[in-house]
């Protein structure tokens, strides 16, 4: 390590992790935002899409800005903007203001993240170590984001996710202020900046495709757990924490293999395999999501780090090429979300109808007494109406249970069968989107395979 104080390295890593966590941190809060702000699934998706879209568009210009005004000043200002916008997100009471604040948050975040890559080499002693730390901080933030967001949503509120980010961003910005003051005293001239080389197109293309697949895995799995299987945000956070834990194991595995191309290919295959597994869940059981999540987690750590290294290897300036990787990753997330949301929303509506029809058939053909059957039909219809197009929780429609032991047993059996049909519908609704995500992951193998032969 160089003579730079450790707090500065920690602050830079925190800044990168914090900003990149934001691309996924609200995933588990989306159902609550969806209900509180009275919007649609497609509308609430823009809370995620807006942030990732602005990051994708602003990352490279932000890197240029950071190099022109000085990374210390840019980083400090970027984090201040990020903190202010985070407070605005937390104070939002309407979807439009939340999305607008998310855009500003992404602008500040893009500047902070690219400035951090420019500052890290001086702080850790070498560009290679700086890239590794930068990539690891980003991957950790992105992987931990959903779990932390879920915990905060359940324990406090969705607003707390954003309100907590403000002091963290300020804490990360404080050690960078010293660099900013130094830059202000010495000054940096644009004419001194070297020309920027072309970005690694194939590595960035592969990053975009894999990121689209990973966005599918996170976003869809969370919606399946909360909206489909009715887990609480904290329950879903515990379930999806399998992914970051597996990513940690994957990073150790990757360290043993020198070939970045092999790591990228293996990672893309594992991400696709995991997504295919999620598309083929044989039952609505949380435990069955664990093996696919392990594959996605290990795969994402292998492929993201390998492709980021490839995109940055031997290219200068690092901040600009780092900006390209940020841009590619977030563009991939946007493409993934925009491509999958309409498919998923149409599928869930169709599956809901089919599941409700199948459940009604179960009630009609059951052996409970006709009057009880009709009473149940009325209560179930009431539940369906009150749940406004979502996959309903059917249990309350059966309360109170009949006192007659025979009727009670028949009703309990009926409730189980009806819930099974709804679980089948909710689970199956996600299958085409997971499969599309798997396909995107496999398509990334094309640029990964070409990367060795065609150096752009």
């Amino acid at each position, binding site marked *: 390590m160089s003579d730079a104080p450790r707090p500065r390295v920690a602050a830079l890593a925190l800044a990168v992790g914090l900003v990149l966590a934001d691309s996924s941190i609200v995933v588990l809060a989306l159902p609550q935002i969806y209900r509180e702000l009275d919007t649609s699934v497609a509308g609430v998706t823009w809370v995620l899409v807006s942030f990732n879209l602005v990051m994708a568009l602003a990352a490279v210009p932000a890197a240029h800005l950071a190099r022109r005004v000085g990374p210390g000043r840019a980083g400090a200002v970027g984090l201040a903007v990020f903190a202010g916008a985070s407070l605005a997100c937390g104070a939002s009471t309407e979807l439009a203001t939340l999305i607008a604040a998310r855009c500003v948050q992404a602008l500040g975040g893009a500047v902070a993240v690219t400035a951090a890559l420019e500052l890290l080499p001086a702080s850790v002693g070498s560009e290679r170590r700086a890239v590794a730390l930068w990539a690891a901080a980003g991957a950790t933030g992105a992987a931990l984001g959903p779990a932390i967001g879920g915990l905060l949503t359940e324990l406090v509120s969705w607003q707390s996710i954003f309100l907590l980010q403000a002091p963290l961003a300020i804490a990360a910005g404080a050690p960078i202020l010293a660099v900013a003051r130094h830059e202000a005293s010495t000054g940096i001239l644009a004419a001194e900046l070297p020309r920027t080389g072309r970005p690694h197109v194939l590595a960035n293309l592969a990053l975009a495709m894999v990121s689209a697949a990973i966005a599918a895995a996170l976003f869809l799995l969370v919606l399946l757990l909360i909206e489909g299987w009715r887990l609480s945000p904290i329950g879903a956070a515990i379930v999806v924490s399998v992914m970051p834990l597996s990513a940690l194991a994957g990073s150790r*595995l990757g360290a*043993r*293999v*020198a*070939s970045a*191309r*092999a*790591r990228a*290919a*293996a*990672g893309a*295959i*594992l991400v*696709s*395999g*995991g997504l*295919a*597994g999620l*598309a*083929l*869940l*044989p*039952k*609505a059981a949380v435990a*069955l999501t664990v*093996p*696919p999540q392990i*594959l996605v987690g290990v*795969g994402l750590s292998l492929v993201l780090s390998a492709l980021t290294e490839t995109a940055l290897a031997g290219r200068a300036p690092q901040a600009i090429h780092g900006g390209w990787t940020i841009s590619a990753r977030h563009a991939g997330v946007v493409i993934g979300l925009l491509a999958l949301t309409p498919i998923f929303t149409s599928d869930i509506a169709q*599956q809901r109808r*089919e*599941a*409700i*029809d*199948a*459940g*009604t*058939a*179960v009630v*009609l*053909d059951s052996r409970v*007494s*006709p*009057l009880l*059957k*009709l*009473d149940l*039909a*009325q209560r*179930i*219809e*009431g539940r*369906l*109406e009150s749940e406004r197009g979502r996959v309903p929780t059917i249990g309350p429609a059966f309360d109170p249970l009949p006192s007659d032991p025979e009727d009670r047993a028949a009703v309990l059996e009926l409730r189980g069968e009806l819930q099974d*049909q*709804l679980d*089948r*519908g909710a*689970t*199956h609704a996600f299958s085409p989107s997971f499969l599309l995500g798997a396909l995107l992951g496999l398509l990334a193998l094309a640029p990964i395979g070409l990367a060795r032969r065609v150096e752009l």
Partner: protein
Amino acid sequence: MSAAADRRGLVLIAVAVAVSAALVLAYLAAGGSSYTPAKVQDPCEPRPWRNPQGIEEIAQQFSLSALDGAACELGVSRETLARALATPESRDRFTRRYGINDAQLAEAIRSGLLRAVGDAEEAGALSPLVGVPLRETLRRIPVEEAIELIQNARSLLDNVQSFLGPAQGLLEEFLP
């Protein structure tokens, strides 16, 4: 890059392929491709009666057959129609959604009831001696009464049972 490093890379890819394929095959073998909601039956297709025992079960099968027949007439599933008849509000939503009026709905229910008589006879649950007058009663049932009949699902069943009511003595006599 050394040959050993290349080999390690190939092994990593092979392991990734093997693990992914194993997971997909295991989930397929466990029924992953067929974990979908059960398909509901076409209401226009005949649905076999399941050995009804006693008047109450006959009445229940009868009303299910009537639902099948009416749903077939209206071009919807039996399940959709059953939910539509659950409450007056759900019936209103149903008629608005499918663009049908009460008279059309009543006509469909009447036609369903007639099919139910035929199904009951075919299943041997109803003697033709009862079926003939029952058919006549249903054919002559006024539209208003048919609408009243479908105001809610409970009255549907009660009315089906009330149709059978006058013939109950006969039914008990002629039940197979």
